[in-house]
């Protein structure tokens, strides 16, 4: 019997400089013909060691660091850190501050999901049309951030004990106008893509993650909910008054890239609902409690978790009564969601590996910290 056609596998670098790795992230893929045999990621290109730097700075000086880890959702990062320090120091935040924090976190989730959806459709090959539409809507959200915090991307808006300054007068009408137009656009985006046969063919049954693997591999956020696990920190462990708002958690069916896409699209709608309820019941009063700049929380440790756009964003802060934290650790959802990269990509084709990576929605700033 003649030997079958044997093509030896070779390694290609979907390297740091590649149009669809969402930043400086390198994936070494061993390919046998068109099929992926092994995938291994090489990270660390953007490593600034925030955790070491944070030990040299005071608690308030660390807030800008949290903007720069996950530069697509700076509000959620600030919120997570401030909650951790408030839990450590036992500071409580006034009602208005908490409501503003909820509004900002949900607006940030909308902006980050727009970027995620756009980049994901770009990976499946739709020639930048959906990503342009999503970015056009994201600009409106960024204008709101610029109006309140002065910056579009790294807002540095939250402080320990509340928010830096109160929301300006014309923030509320602008947000209400945005909330009226957003659901229409979300339906249009869903119409363009969710029913599209080619998009379905490219994303259905691609990178399927069974529910038990999802839990065991400590995935989080849309990755977890895509596999059918109804876990959302805003419902399970409500912070900043989330128990006051009613919204639902979208969960997928079989945990493939398509489920993660429709979960993210549905989360956009839920965020719009939350913002609407938060804006209606916006209480008066101070926007933050006075906290001394040289804050010295009592000795001890605290771990606070926030439902960021990419999943459970945890901050573990240990204090030794010094002005700066003794130990500062960020739980990076993007990095831990990548622990199943090999299980997702092996067996599929190179095109599927790219779509799988896109469905994880990584931000390299958060992976490398």
């Amino acid at each position, binding site marked *: 019997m003649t030997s079958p056609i044997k093509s030896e596998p070779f390694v290609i670098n979907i390297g740091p400089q590649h149009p669809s790795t969402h930043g400086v992230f390198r994936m070494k893929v061993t390919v046998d013909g068109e099929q992926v045999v092994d995938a291994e990621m090489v990270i660390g290109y953007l490593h600034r060691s925030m955790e070491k730097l944070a030990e040299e700075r005071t608690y308030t000086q660390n807030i800008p660091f949290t903007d720069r880890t996950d530069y697509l959702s700076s509000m959620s990062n600030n919120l997570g850190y401030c909650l951790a320090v408030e839990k450590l120091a036992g500071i409580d935040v006034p009602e208005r501050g908490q409501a503003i924090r909820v509004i900002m976190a949900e607006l940030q989730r909308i902006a980050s999901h727009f970027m995620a959806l756009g980049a994901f459709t770009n990976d499946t090959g739709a020639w930048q049309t959906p990503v*342009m*539409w999503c970015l*056009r809507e994201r600009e409106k959200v960024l204008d709101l951030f610029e109006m309140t915090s002065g910056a579009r991307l790294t807002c540095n808006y939250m402080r320990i004990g509340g928010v830096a300054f109160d929301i300006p007068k014309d923030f509320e009408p602008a947000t209400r106008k945005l909330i009226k137009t957003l659901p229409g656009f979300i339906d249009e985006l869903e119409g363009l893509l969710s029913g*599209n046969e*080619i998009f379905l063919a490219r994303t259905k049954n691609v990178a399927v993650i069974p529910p038990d693997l999802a839990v065991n591999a400590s995935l989080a956020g849309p990755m977890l909910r895509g596999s*059918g696990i109804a876990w959302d920190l805003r419902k399970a462990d409500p912070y900043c008054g989330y128990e006051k708002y009613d919204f639902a958690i979208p969960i997928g069916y079989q945990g493939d890239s398509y489920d993660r896409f429709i979960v993210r699209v549905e989360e956009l709608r839920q965020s719009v609902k939350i913002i609407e309820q938060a804006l209606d019941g916006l209480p008066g009063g101070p926007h933050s409690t006075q906290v001394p700049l040289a804050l010295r929380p009592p000795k001890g440790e605290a771990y606070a978790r926030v439902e960021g756009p990419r999943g459970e964003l945890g901050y573990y802060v240990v204090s030794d009564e010094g002005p700066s934290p003794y130990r500062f650790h960020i739980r990076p959802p993007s990095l831990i969601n990548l622990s199943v990269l090999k299980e997702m990509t092996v067996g599929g084709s190179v*095109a599927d590996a790219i779509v799988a990576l896109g469905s994880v929605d990584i931000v390299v700033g958060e992976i490398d910290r």
Partner: protein
Amino acid sequence: MRVQFLATDNWYDLRDLSNLSSAILDGLDKIAPQGVVYVAAALIGFVAAFLIFVLPSQLFVGVLGERKLIGRIQSRYGPNRVGPYGVLQPIADALKLLTKESLTPVAADRLVMYMAPVLFVMPAVLMWAVIPFGPNMIFADIPVALVYFLAISSLPVLASFMAGWSHNNKYSLFGAMRIVAMAISYEIPLVLSLLGVVVLTETLSLQEMVFWQDRFDIWLFAVQPLAMIIYFIAVSAELNRTPTDIAEAESEIVAGYLTEYSGMKWGLFYGMDIGYALGAAAFGVTVFFGGWTLFGLEEWVPAWMIFVVKVWAFYFLFIWTRGTLPRLRIDQLMSFAWKYMLPLALFNLLIICTERILWTDAFDGDKPFIYLFAIANIIFAGLLILGWARLLGYRPERTQTRPRMVQEAGGYVPVAPARGEGR
């Protein structure tokens, strides 16, 4: 053939440019030695077909028009900085590409790498020899024009493969392998769909097909909608435009077989891609959309104007699909070609042959029955497309496009058993 309104044969009658060219050639024939007239005829043909029509429409429709229209699809302006409304953008692009340094990787196969763009351009020019622009405005009315077009359209695949192979770069090798595999599997449905047209019009020459459509006052895409759809998909696969642009899928294999090219070598590939798209559009218009005729309008308006507008309209289809559709995977494309397009093309051929025999024997070729066949074919096309898809397991109603909503946070929520597992 309808005689042109107030048809005068003197050279300044721009409605039929063949008078002008024959006047020049006759003048030259008197003064020049024996062989020079042939060379002059070839030059005039090249200048008229390629330099006057193809190159400008490549630049303005292909580069500028496409970028502006895709910009509009993506809710942004296309290029509007260079010149009024960005009109000079293509010229700026061309100059930029000309002045850019074209690199050659050390380990590349230099000879093959330099030859590839040349071999890619040559068929793009040859393709325009058989396309009729007007009643007698055709460069070479050879009786086998259709087969000539198919032969020429299989050459650029080789040039792309040479380009991909010679770069000695993994991404290029991927692109080369993909384009060759896809070109072979999409050539067969293309040939079969055109075969249906040949069976009906009993000729291989494009000019004859245009006269046939003019004589029976019906466009062939109405008579054979299925052939038209298969032609469009097969040609967009041959030219690897989205949704089938996997040879240079920028999100996976950076730029496929064009990764190592820069400067004018890449420019040639980019320009001639658009040239082939225009060629395929011109061919599609001639075969399926009645070439330069518009039910008698060609007596007043110059025929070649009608033809040019139709080509740009057909080219818009390519721009439209490129702006909206995502990209298919290589194995999906292969199975789509062999399991879906090929059977449909064979069914289409079967229907057309039976109609052909019915038409010539039972109704001895009179006109109204063509319209009857057209309606029947449109129904057949619809039935075939949907029926064959469902046979292959295409159940669109099974895919849930909305996630399940849960109020309480908790562990795994098992999926309620759906009616049956769709594909």
